[in-house]
């Protein structure tokens, strides 16, 4: 399971970096999203995966009495997902605006010459 996830992480990082290095803005965004997923799975793997031991305290107990999964990585991932959700949503709106204004998807066209500055 771990080995599979590690391979997935590697592939996601590689794909994300490949996309980031392209000139298209949409692919840049996709690359950033892939990198985000890779990071989330990385945190998940680093939290030492165990199978079928949820860290839930039963109704009759006060503390966890047996070894169980670490809930912290999941909390971290959840927070990171929420944040990347907001970032991605904003990025999509920004991309749309840029495209509507400049009618280009090429990052190299994002350089209005300095003369046009005020």
């Amino acid at each position, binding site marked *: 399971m771990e080995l599979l996830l590690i391979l997935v992480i590697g592939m996601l990082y590689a794909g994300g970096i490949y996309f980031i290095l392209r000139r298209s803005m949409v692919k840049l965004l996709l690359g950033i999203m892939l990198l985000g997923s890779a990071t989330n799975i990385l945190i998940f793997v680093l939290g030492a995966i165990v199978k079928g031991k949820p860290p839930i305290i039963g109704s009759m107990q006060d503390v966890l009495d047996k070894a169980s999964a670490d809930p912290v990585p999941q909390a971290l991932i*959840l927070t990171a997902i*929420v944040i990347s959700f907001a970032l991605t*949503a*904003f990025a*999509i*709106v920004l991309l*749309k605006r840029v495209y*509507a204004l400049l009618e280009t998807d090429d990052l190299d066209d994002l350089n209005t010459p300095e003369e046009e500055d005020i």
Partner: protein
Amino acid sequence: MRSSILQTATRYLLPILLLFSVFLLLRGHYYPGGGFVGGLVASIAFVLHSFANGTDASMKLLGRKPLSLLPIGLGIAAFSVVLPMFWGLPPMTGLWLKGTFPIVGSLGTALFFDLGVYLVVVGVVLTILFTISLTDD
């Protein structure tokens, strides 16, 4: 393009999804669920409605701008965070009322925090999606 199948299905799905989102919200403190997921489900309900009937119709159904949910939600959440400070406790400390209540079970600041998150999520998601879909036309 309006599909009458989707429109009919949405009419039944919208209340069910909203009810499910409230269920997730109330369940959230001890079991999987909570304000964020609940808010997402609720906003998906409205997004589905806007797919079937158009964005304007869902705006009318909502009755107000989704962005106006943001200060309400933030206010509720922030208030539940600072409330313990009036008792000299650190912020975010969970305060619980004694006894149980119908439907919600026990009542505490955590529930109000989740409620705030719920409203903020609905507000933000709908604002973003409506902005994207309205500029398309």
